[in-house]
């Protein structure tokens, strides 16, 4: 196990930002922290990056207690650099702080600039960089010292669609070489790149596992029924429906307890000689499953 976190808690005065959170990241695994704003994602990542001291709990990294800051790469949500430096100067500065030997540094810096596509801007002052360019430079500085674990805080939230795609592609490439732990509030981003997702709410882990499995955990089956006759008195009394929502007198959205009850519902309709004009199975989307987990 590359990173293991046990019962991590962070309190700010009265407010508990992270509440007994436990998670683990294996080597070369990509894990997403998913949750709404204010669910404690950034606080968790800051503690794992060694910037914030946990109130209680344990962190084990590479088999040792505590974080070895020379073996992690960290990218905050809004990376800020020294605006008077050029991109190249900044990477040299960052590399020296992370003990990269002088001989290897220059070629490493050039390699990183090429990887994030900043070769043409390498001698320009960072002060003039756009948000997307800063994000690229942020990724370059996080990868420079070949970390074992990359910690990215909302790496794509602030980017335009193109920048988003580029960064997600970079992450796809990177996860072959190192472990990535990143936070996001966009379900789709998590689905695209990560192997495992940890869903947070109010600083607690709500669910964790493969997102594909999350799709299947939605046990409830929804269907929509339109008929010519009124549905009201009869439909609200069927025993196998978890919930019935009438859109109108002749149209209802029914949440069934089991998939097999679908046939039972149709059979009941036939038995009561109800003319069904429309019957639709609603597909269980990832969003539905996510919202279900969040509202549990």
């Amino acid at each position, binding site marked *: 196990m590359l990173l293991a976190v046990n019962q991590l808690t962070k309190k*700010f005065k009265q407010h508990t930002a992270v509440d007994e959170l436990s998670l683990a990241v294996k080597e070369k695994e990509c894990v997403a922290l998913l949750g709404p704003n204010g669910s404690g994602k950034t606080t968790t990542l*800051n503690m794992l*990056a*060694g*910037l*914030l*001291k946990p109130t209680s709990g344990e962190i084990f990294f590479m088999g040792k207690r505590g974080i*070895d*800051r*020379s073996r*992690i790469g*960290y990218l*905050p949500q*809004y*990376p*800020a*650099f*020294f605006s*008077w*430096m050029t991109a190249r100067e900044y990477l040299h*500065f*960052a590399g*020296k*702080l*992370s*003990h990269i030997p002088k001989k290897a540094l220059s070629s490493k810096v050039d390699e990183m600039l090429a990887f994030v596509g900043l070769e043409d801007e390498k001698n320009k002052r960072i002060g003039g960089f756009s948000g997307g360019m800063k994000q690229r430079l*942020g990724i370059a*500085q996080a990868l420079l*010292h070949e970390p074992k674990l990359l910690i990215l805080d909302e790496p794509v939230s602030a980017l335009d669609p193109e920048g988003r795609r580029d960064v997600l592609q970079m992450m796809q490439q990177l996860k072959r070489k190192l472990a990535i732990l990143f936070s996001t509030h966009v379900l789709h981003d998590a689905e695209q790149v990560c192997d495992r997702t940890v869903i947070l709410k109010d600083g607690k882990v709500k669910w964790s596992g493969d997102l594909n499995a999350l799709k299947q955990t939605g046990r409830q089956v929804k269907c929509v029924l339109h008929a010519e006759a009124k549905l009201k008195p009869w439909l609200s009394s069927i025993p196998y429906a978890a919930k019935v929502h009438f859109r109108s007198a002749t149209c209802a959205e029914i949440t069934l307890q089991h998939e097999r009850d679908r046939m039972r519902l149709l059979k009941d309709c036939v038995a009561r000689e109800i003319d069904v004009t429309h019957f639709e199975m609603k597909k269980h989307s990832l969003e539905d499953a996510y919202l279900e987990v969040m509202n549990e």
Partner: protein
Amino acid sequence: MKIFLTLFQKEWLEAWRDKKLLWLPIVMILTAVSQPIALYYMADVLEGAGNLPEGSVIEIPLPSGEEVLASTLSQFDIIGTAIVVLSVMGIISHERSSGALALVMARPVAALHYIASKWLAYAFILIFSFTVSYGFAYYYTIHLFQGVSLGRFFASSAIYCLWILFVMAVTLTVGTMIKKTGGIAGVSLLLAAGLSLLSSLFPEYMKWSPANASRKANQFLLTGEWGDAFYPAVIASSFLIMGLFMLAILLFKRFESCTA
């Protein structure tokens, strides 16, 4: 050591690109030089001001060179202190609020490296600026008034540097705790002025105070002697400055690990 040197180097490059390395000595030189020049032309200025009845004779005895230098240092007590505070107030809080600090601290950088790099870089810059500006004042003094021995000049400037270091140390320490630069400047100036005031009100109890440094420098300029309680004052001030340095590291560590 490599980390400290990298950060130290960065401070110099930043001071150079910011032009701080340029304006700081220039402002200090202007402050210092204005005193001997103003004193020299005082009589002409008063005469030119008019409003004086016909036939009034203005006779201002020309001060000695030592007196001119001493008044230059008193000028520094006010304006120089403010310049030191203003030039140092933002160096931590600015990096903290912009977020650049988080990326530095995410690397294996200790609080000691970070604080020491800023502390030493600015100690050099400020002492250099002060010495150069005081040197200019010395130059004008010996040309417009009379000669002052080099020994008195160097000894008084060395002692005065203690006060500059102290003000810088206070500002840096306050700067580790407060987010807004205005607040940092206000609190630092208040502390420096308060100590100065206390030292002149209760000289008996304040022999350790770094505010005495400027008084001792004055005394040495005028008399060539340090007077009583010189060594205790120097040693206590040095310890106080060292203590502030360590306090800054501690406070910085606490602030960084508790809020981010």
